[in-house]
């Protein structure tokens, strides 16, 4: 067992090396930036969970517009559990994820039977009706004003999780864990089956794959992680309001994902990271940000429809030529 682990580490040394460097950067990062920027990083981590779990659902072929409301499910669940019932954060975290998953499971029963455009519209309707429930029902969801007084997660008394930097580490650990699980899933046979379904649903059926079941599975698991993201969001903002989970947020999610690409695991992460940095850079041009994002999305769809992740492939021939010109062998 130990030998196998060692062999694995040696075989994947470069990959693990890069990951360790990235980890180190992420650990020192909050001390290198201003407090406000730490808050941005926390939200970025939450958004990373959101886009990666969104991609998980897209691997079966459907773009769910109910994903942001699913995040809302997690946020509302934890608000009700911790602020309402006094459940500790650490128990509420998985429970609220599960609440989103259960809601998703129920919705997925009809949703998984739709494809393409119908899925788009149906998931939007399902998600938005959820959001309307939170607006309309004053009890227990608090209507337009939402729920407040969501407690700070408790940890050892020496660590104050209401401060940005400790919360950043909390979010970092949970994000890393979520990504690890989803990466594992993506590379497992379950993930391969999801991709097979999106490539050709009829063929998958004829080979004995229960397409509806796997679509429901992807939707449920993806929503679980969206719920977890919602929990992290709710405990950072100490409040949840229905407006947070409206269509504008969904649009941002779509922009991140289109910009990054959905074919690879890292594509959507790349998209959300680059665009978050960009919108921070453009902070002084506040009014222009939506217009700039709109332009970016149109240009992306025209010039590199595969998203950022596709750029690597696109430049490979060019790089090869440069190497060739420099007298090296082209890379294959």
């Amino acid at each position, binding site marked *: 067992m130990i030998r196998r682990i060692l062999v694995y580490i040696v075989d994947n040394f470069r990959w693990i090396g890069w990951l360790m460097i990235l980890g180190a950067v992420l650990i020192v990062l909050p001390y290198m930036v201003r407090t406000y920027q730490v808050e941005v990083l926390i939200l970025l981590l939450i958004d990373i969970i959101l886009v990666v779990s969104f991609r998980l659902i897209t691997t079966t072929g459907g773009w769910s517009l109910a994903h942001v409301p699913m995040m809302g499910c997690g946020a509302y669940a934890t608000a009700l559990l911790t602020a309402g019932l006094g459940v500790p954060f650490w128990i509420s975290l998985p429970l609220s994820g599960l609440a989103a998953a259960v809601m998703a499971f129920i919705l997925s029963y009809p949703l998984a039977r739709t494809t393409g455009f119908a899925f788009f519209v149906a998931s939007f309707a399902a998600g938005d009706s959820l959001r309307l429930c939170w607006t309309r029902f004053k009890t227990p969801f608090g209507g337009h004003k939402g729920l407040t007084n969501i407690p700070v997660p408790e940890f050892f008394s020496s660590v104050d999780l209401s401060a940005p930097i400790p919360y950043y580490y909390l979010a970092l650990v949970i994000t890393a864990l979520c990504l690890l699980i989803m990466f594992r899933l993506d590379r497992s046979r379950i993930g391969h089956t999801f991709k*097979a379904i999106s490539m050709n649903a*009829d*063929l998958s059926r*004829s*080979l*004995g794959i229960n*397409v509806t079941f796997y679509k429901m599975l992807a939707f449920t698991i993806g929503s679980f992680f969206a719920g977890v993201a919602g929990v992290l969001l709710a405990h950072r903002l100490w409040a949840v309001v229905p407006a947070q989970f409206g269509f504008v947020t969904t649009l941002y999610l779509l922009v991140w994902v289109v910009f990054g690409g959905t074919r690879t695991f890292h594509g959507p992460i790349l998209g959300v990271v680059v665009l978050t940095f960009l919108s921070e850079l453009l902070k002084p041009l506040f009014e222009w940000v939506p217009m700039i994002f709109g332009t970016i999305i149109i240009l992306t769809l025209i010039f590199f429809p595969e998203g950022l992740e596709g750029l690597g492939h696109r430049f490979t021939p060019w790089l090869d030529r440069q190497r060739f010109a420099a007298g090296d062998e082209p890379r294959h």
Partner: protein
Amino acid sequence: MALLQLKNLGKDFGRLVAVNRIDLTVEPGEIRGLIGPNGSGKTTIFNLITGFIPPSRGSVFFQGEDITDLPPHAVARRGLARTFQLTTLFKEMTALENVVMACHLHLRVGLWRQFWRTARTRRREKAVEFRAMELLEFMGMAERANELAGELPHGHQCALGISNALATNPKMILLDEPVGGMNPTETAQTMDRIRRLRDLGITVLLVEHDMKAVMSTCDRITCINFGNKIAEGTARDVCSSQDVIEAYLGGTSGVCSL
């Protein structure tokens, strides 16, 4: 006992009767041909048998079990595989990955174990890969195992489609135009492999337009037109049937130039 039995099977699309009332019995170990002019309802019959579309009337029995209302994946699990008319593959996967995916059914590993990829799961995955390679060899595709399915030449795509169907370990296989668009050499090779399938104990029902291939391979042939069965029997019987000749050529001359 008949392996596959269609009783009074029919399908209407609105007011169009695609398949009227078909009775068909396929015995184990048989190679059965299903022929008919374009639009006569052959592919619809395939879709009805495999549960892709629900029939308007009648029923389908496989090994004595009523499978009329089963969804496609459940039909596949009972050992009834099919291929599709236009090459239907996982185009962005390699040939080997295609067949490995098609072996899905045999993995018999729970979701949880698939997620953790325990040693046992990995062993099974290795075994599945080995089996997939065997199937590719059987279909004469071994040297192309690592090419992307979408980039294979047409003949190989068809062969890969059959490999995929075989990977479900079927008792019976429905082939929808297995030699469509192939050159004569490829056709001969494919028909030879279909005969070898029969020798492996797999019953075959095939739809094909290449009359020469059908006549030389099938034990029995069923001819349909406008959703009705118009002839059934050996190649010779079907060829000499006046109804068949009329259906194909409007009654001018013989269909079969063997």
